[in-house]
């Protein structure tokens, strides 16, 4: 498993495009909102966390289909499935590597984009914390859809459509926790803990479904 994690990271760093694409798309989404809502800073400030979360969610959704598609193209998916002792472990390793490459950069970019949207420092910290807790869930849930769409021509869109409704709870608790940190009456710990629970739950369900899908890679 560690070997796979190492390889995935080296591939991503060497190829380099994966991480950058995600952050660029995140920047594009964040930049678009003020044009729609208007340049009024305190309005943007209030909506900032929501814009950051939506940007991060969409960016990680669109990067998901690369999770298995690249391996299928160069043939290593067959050998990975063949050699994998517990196939689920391989899928989890791939999800972790994918998250480190495409999820983490989004979190690291949040402060910059947060300042652009006039989000107070506490808000930025809250968004980063909730993204750190929530984005792995998106990768895990998306793993099943990514395994399905790996062999399809326009798999990327299909993965996004299949995964989006399943990530709505993550979005809801991510934003509720962020608001909890910003405005006193709202609770922070309760939604944040539920968010963590969602991530742990999807860390089991997603890879299990993806492993089931890959066991007979019929193509």
């Amino acid at each position, binding site marked *: 498993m560690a070997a796979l994690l190492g390889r995935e990271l080296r591939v991503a760093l060497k190829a380099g495009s994966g991480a950058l694409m995600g952050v660029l798309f995140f920047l594009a989404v964040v930049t678009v909102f003020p044009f729609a809502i208007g340049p009024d800073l305190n309005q943007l400030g209030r909506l900032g966390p929501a814009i950051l979360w939506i940007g991060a969610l969409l960016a990680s959704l669109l990067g998901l289909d690369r999770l298995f598609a690249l391996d299928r193209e160069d043939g290593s998916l*067959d050998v990975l499935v063949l050699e994998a*002792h517990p196939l689920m472990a391989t899928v989890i390793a791939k999800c972790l590597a994918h998250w480190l490459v495409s999820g983490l950069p989004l979190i690291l970019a949040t402060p910059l984009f947060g300042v652009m949207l006039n989000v107070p420092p506490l808000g930025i910290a809250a968004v980063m914390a909730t993204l750190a807790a929530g984005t792995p869930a998106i990768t895990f849930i998306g793993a099943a859809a990514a395994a399905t769409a790996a062999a399809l021509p326009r798999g990327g869109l299909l993965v996004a459509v299949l995964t989006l409704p399943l990530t709505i709870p993550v979005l809801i608790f991510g934003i509720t926790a962020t608001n909890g940190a910003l405005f006193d009456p709202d609770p922070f710990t309760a939604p944040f803990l539920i968010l963590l629970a969602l991530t742990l739950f999807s860390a089991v369900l997603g890879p299990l479904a993806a492993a089931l899908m890959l066991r007979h890679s019929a193509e």
Partner: protein
Amino acid sequence: MRFEADTLSVNRGLRRVVQDVSFSLGEGEVLTVTGANGAGKSTLLRALCGLLPLAAGRLRLAGLGEGEDDPLIFREHLHYLGPQNAMKAALSIRENLAFWRDFSGGSDGLEIEQALRAVELPHVADLPFSYLSTGMRRRVAICRLLVSKKPVWIVDEPTSGLDRSASELFAGLCRAHCADGGILVAATHLPLGLGKAQTLAMETLFTVFEGDAFFDGEEA
């Protein structure tokens, strides 16, 4: 260790592509699978590795004890070299082979330098895989079989993209593998020059459809 198949049948969707294939391979024995394109060679090989479900028949890697008749379990003792090379273009040869050695868990395979010398590519270890020509890439893909030792090799068009001398090289490696008690199943157009080998000629099945049973309702 015996690799036995008993009236295997495999489908691709509703089409029956492989019908009633049987063979029995002892240690050191070779099976070459021939046939026109679309005759089901690749399908059969993928089914042998458990990458495709069997429609009918039984497959066993006897001598393994537990899990010997379930491809999903015994396939860990197989090396599958598919039509593609399973190497990451962005990584160097050394990184690719080191990964497959660690991931496959074969501890008693050749060292990377040894494997590369065996395919006469001693100087490429640190080049990115994408720099190589198709013939050299195929040879590196063959190295993956050397860096971790597995008793059964299942290779699909192993010599595709290889010139005469490289094919000779590969035949030599196969002979060494078999001499060492290994089993080899190869799907190929050109003769591998492996001397005594069982052959399985597959012919294209157009008319027989799994669908028949599905629609005519002979059996539930």
